[in-house]
């Protein structure tokens, strides 16, 4: 099922939490929603899941308008809200059975589905405990299990890995990738490596507007323009090396890194790469090239550039 969003706006009081955003998510795509806190990620997700109604604009899911077919569409959406709210007094199995029932799973299929989800999310050792007695990582698994119990076509997750330790993050990410293989997934996060690791596409949202949309490579290219090389050249006179590097046709700028005598940062002319020329130069001059690192613009930098004013 695909998602199409047109001119979506949500006002709280006079403030626009989400301001005229439009985008599409194709069937089977995993989209990462990035943005600073308060940018409108959660509000957008709440509108897509039908929890709150938009002030203006329309949401089409599988080609159908959400407002008009809410009951039908809700059955195809799995949702993991921010902070993973759960009933602490309820035992895990009871809770999953409850959710399965609410999502309209036929009575005789409820138990097999619950067993299956417990197996997939690795909840087996904890299944008889009350949710409130579980560790955070297991609680997150319960959250994922409840979101996917009815095998939804669309999965929407608001910060699925927040508050987990690094091992748990890796596990949950793996789960999301496995379970989301045939699903349309939207997940929000502000952990940047996470989007790169899990998502096909990135949407960056700031102050209620979409400021970037594309794959991480595309965003990187747009943001940096020119490539940057970091090199270390030894056994030469630093100033001579500096001048020689600067004289290469494909370099735009050269600088010392951290004031060290043998390390240089080369910014290439846009559209060309100085790596070959640097190597040839060193061979000619009998300098020793010990390091050459193509320096990628980090997603963090792109994010900061787009979301600070």
């Amino acid at each position: 099922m695909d998602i199409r969003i047109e001119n979506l706006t949500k006002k709280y009081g006079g403030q626009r939490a989400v301001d005229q955003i439009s985008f599409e998510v194709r069937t089977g795509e995993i989209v990462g929603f990035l943005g600073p806190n308060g940018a409108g990620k959660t509000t957008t997700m709440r509108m897509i899941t039908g929890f709150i109604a938009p002030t203006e604009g329309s949401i089409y899911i599988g080609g159908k308008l959400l407002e008009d077919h809410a009951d039908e569409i809700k059955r195809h959406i799995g949702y993991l809200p921010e902070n993973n709210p759960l009933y602490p007094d309820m035992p895990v199995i009871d809770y999953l059975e409850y959710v399965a029932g609410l999502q309209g799973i036929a009575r005789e299929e409820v138990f097999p589905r619950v067993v299956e989800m417990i197996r997939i999310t690795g909840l087996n050792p904890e299944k008889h405990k009350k949710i409130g007695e579980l560790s955070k990582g297991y609680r997150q698994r319960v959250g994922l299990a409840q979101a996917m119990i009815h095998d939804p076509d669309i999965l929407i997750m608001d910060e699925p890995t927040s508050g987990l330790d690094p091992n748990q993050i890796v596990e949950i990410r793996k789960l999301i990738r496995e379970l989301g293989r045939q699903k349309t997934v939207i997940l929000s996060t502000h952990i940047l490596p996470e989007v790169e690791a899990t998502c096909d596409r990135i949407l960056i949202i700031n102050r209620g507007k979409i400021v970037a949309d594309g794959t991480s490579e595309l965003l990187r290219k747009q943001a940096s323009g020119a490539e940057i090389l970091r090199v270390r050249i030894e056994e030469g006179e630093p100033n001579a090396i500096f001048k020689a590097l600067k004289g290469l046709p494909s370099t735009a700028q050269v600088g010392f890194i951290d004031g060290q005598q043998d390390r240089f940062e080369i910014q290439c002319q846009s559209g060309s790469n100085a790596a070959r020329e640097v190597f040839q130069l060193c061979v000619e001059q009998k300098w020793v090239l010990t390091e050459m690192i193509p320096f990628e613009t980090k997603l963090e930098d792109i994010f900061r550039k787009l979301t600070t004013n």
Partner: protein
Amino acid sequence: MHTIWIVTKREFRSFFDSLIAYVMLILFLGISGFFTWLFGTDVFLIGQASLGAFFSIAYWTLFFFIPALTMRLLAEEYRSGTIELLLTRAVTDRQVIIGKFLSTLLLITVALAFTIPYVITIGGIGNLDVGAVICGYLGLLLMSAAYISIGMWASSVTRNQIVAYLAALFIGIFFHLFFGMLATGFTGFAGKLFQSLSMREHFDSISRGVLDSGDLVYFLSLIVLGLFLSEVSLARRNLKA
């Protein structure tokens, strides 16, 4: 219908999961039993085979207990954020409200069912007016339903359970006591109006064994009004402002 039942079942169980149900049952049976059998104007003092003593105690104990049951119904879901999960399921706001209402009513029914031994015992002592007993229980159930409905509304406007409890009591005390008191202080139309709003008036009339359509209308309109306002207050999140 099935969806409502799923909500009801889970809410009913959560009363027991969180031990509220046990505390409530023990206190209710303890207090009403104590005053029915042992103390004050109890059965032996009156010297009649009547459950009047029990009904007038239950009239007050339920008044205080019901807000304690209803205060968490929605306030807790708002506070913990589970409301978001609940309402993004394939359920409507109305199904959630009705489901929660029925679960609390079911718990009250269970509490009242535990007092059936009182009926049997008194029936064994003397000649019991069975019709009046049935009507008395019906009156208690209708009154409970009305207060659950009010309590649910109170719980739907705040995320603080204490506020929900006090708001429900505050609204309830007007119906329970004040309107009746005001009715005696006024004459003419105002007096009639307050009298017709007084819970005591309608409860007494039913527990005397008279089933009047006016009483039923009174209880049903309180119930429907409370449920309707709760639904409205859930739907407030969709305001386009």
